[in-house]
């Protein structure tokens, strides 16, 4: 059972940086492995542990500046390797920055076509920076295989996957023939934390860098133009309610809520 897993080096929404006008300073926000892609890596490793085979991680760099970001994207892939992936591929090309789900999915598909065939392709349901929820569905189209989104359980047997899709009103279990693309939710598993030894060993695993020329894909230009990226302003009182005892703090808070007209 060979599993490809797609991980994004996402802007970390917990580490936002802005200028005085509220404009997001993209270049100053660190990249981190997108939260649900970590679940996808975990699921891939669990499937490997049960069924044998290998896990290969793929990533396309979608944020610049390239020089600075390559190291961060490698770090994200190293994390997947430390968790238990066997090999990783990173596609870096100016023409894919800033990324959008269309060119990113096409580039990922070109990468796997170059590297080999897999039984299963896993990724997170959406990335934590742009939340587009598109890549799994697009990969299904690009690779010409079935795609199933929002998995909170996957069972693999006899060339098939049984997948429980987490939809708004119900859990829907479906069966699909492999190969297939599956996107996972954050609830599917609890990702393991690699040990120090595993982190060190990850540096000995192959991490290959590719360019668009290597994978034979030319993205269309100007598909999406980012006109603006602005932080939503928060204006709160930011008062810390303090006192020498919990009783005092609680009384002060009650009084404040009375003053606000909420407690009557």
């Amino acid at each position, binding site marked *: 059972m060979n599993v490809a897993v797609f991980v994004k080096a996402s802007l970390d929404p917990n580490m936002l940086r802005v200028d005085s006008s509220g404009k997001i300073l993209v270049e100053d926000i660190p990249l981190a492995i997108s939260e649900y892609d970590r679940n996808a890596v975990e699921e891939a490793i669990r499937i490997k542990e049960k069924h044998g085979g290998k896990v290969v991680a793929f990533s396309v760099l979608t944020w610049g500046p390239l020089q600075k970001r390559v190291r961060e994207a490698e770090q994200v892939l190293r994390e997947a390797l430390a968790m238990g992936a066997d090999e990783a591929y990173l596609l870096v090309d100016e023409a894919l920055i800033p990324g959008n*789900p269309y060119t990113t999915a096409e580039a990922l598909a070109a990468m796997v076509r170059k590297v080999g065939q897999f039984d299963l392709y896993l990724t997170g349901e959406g990335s934590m920076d742009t939340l587009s929820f598109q890549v799994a569905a697009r990969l299904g189209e690009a690779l010409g295989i079935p*795609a199933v989104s929002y998995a909170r359980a996957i069972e693999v047997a006899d060339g098939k996957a*049984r997948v429980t899709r987490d939809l708004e009103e119900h859990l829907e279990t479906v069966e699909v023939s492999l190969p297939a693309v599956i996107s996972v939710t954050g609830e599917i598993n609890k990702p393991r934390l690699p040990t120090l030894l595993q982190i060190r060993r990850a540096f000995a695993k192959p991490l290959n860098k590719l360019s668009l020329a290597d994978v034979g894909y030319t993205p269309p230009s100007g598909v999406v133009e980012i006109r603006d*990226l602005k932080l939503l302003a928060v204006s709160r009182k930011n008062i810390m309610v303090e006192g020498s005892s919990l009783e005092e703090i609680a009384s002060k808070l009650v009084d404040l809520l009375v003053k606000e007209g909420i*407690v009557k």
Partner: protein
Amino acid sequence: MKVLLVAEKPGLLPELAGFLKDLGSKLGGVEAIAFTAAPSLDEAKKFTTYGFAKSYVAVAEQAFPDQLAKAVVEIIDKEGPDLVVGVATKMGNEVVARIAGAKGMPMFTEIVDVEAGDGAVLFHRAVLGGRAISVLKPALPAAATIPARKYEAPQPGEPGEVVEVKLPPSALSLVKVEKKEKGGINIEEAEIVVGVGRGFRKKEDLAMAEELANLLGGAVGCSRPIAADYHWLPEDAWIGISGKKIRPKLYIAIGISGAPQHMSAVMDAKVIVAVNKDKNAPVFQYTDYGVVADLYQFLPVFIQKLKEKLGG
């Protein structure tokens, strides 16, 4: 501009028509065609009365995203729309993403606003955990989904032309469907919401939050892990970008760290209070009144003081 509306069920056509009206008022000269799937043509016809030039209907009891997408791709090949628009349900996002993938179009998931002028459109999206808005200009043709339940239905008019289409087979087969439990709480309507997070150690301890909510005449909501991981509360209590957006008079976040994906959905609250034992918790950036304390020690005292106030 020609717009194809994609509704995985006919009940979504009215809100798509609402979006179309908004787009038309900004852009002028919008022509619309619609696609939906329904158990019968008659069922679909109840919802095709919003001035669509043509409505394509796939008759099916149940359909998977791949089938719907394939059917829509055929319609696109015939009609050549500039814009394909669905509703940002999980199903709708998946269907439209497949269509966009098959047709090589950019797609904009859950657009919160549209700007239009000179025949060009700009889409606004919430990104970075809901904390930021990006303004994006697509090359047309493009696809998008609109937030569910955002747009009001316009006045219905004459039923337009309805064309039945066949659904191709799906690569998926259905094994079973389990309905999710509903709590019957409506935190979107509540004036006061007490939000609980992973600072609570076990389900029984939520009784303190419930007591507080009862005292204040409010409802209990929660962060994603409380509903989705632990199932301590039903999913309709889940607050955040992937749950409910709320705008109460008062939101009290208790044992919630203040992740952007949670806090961006409570920013319209009039007053925000947080109780967290970690003075550096990000939640305090979003609060009017912050209390640094162990919730297990603070809540009983706070409830007592409130009772005194309300009783007296």
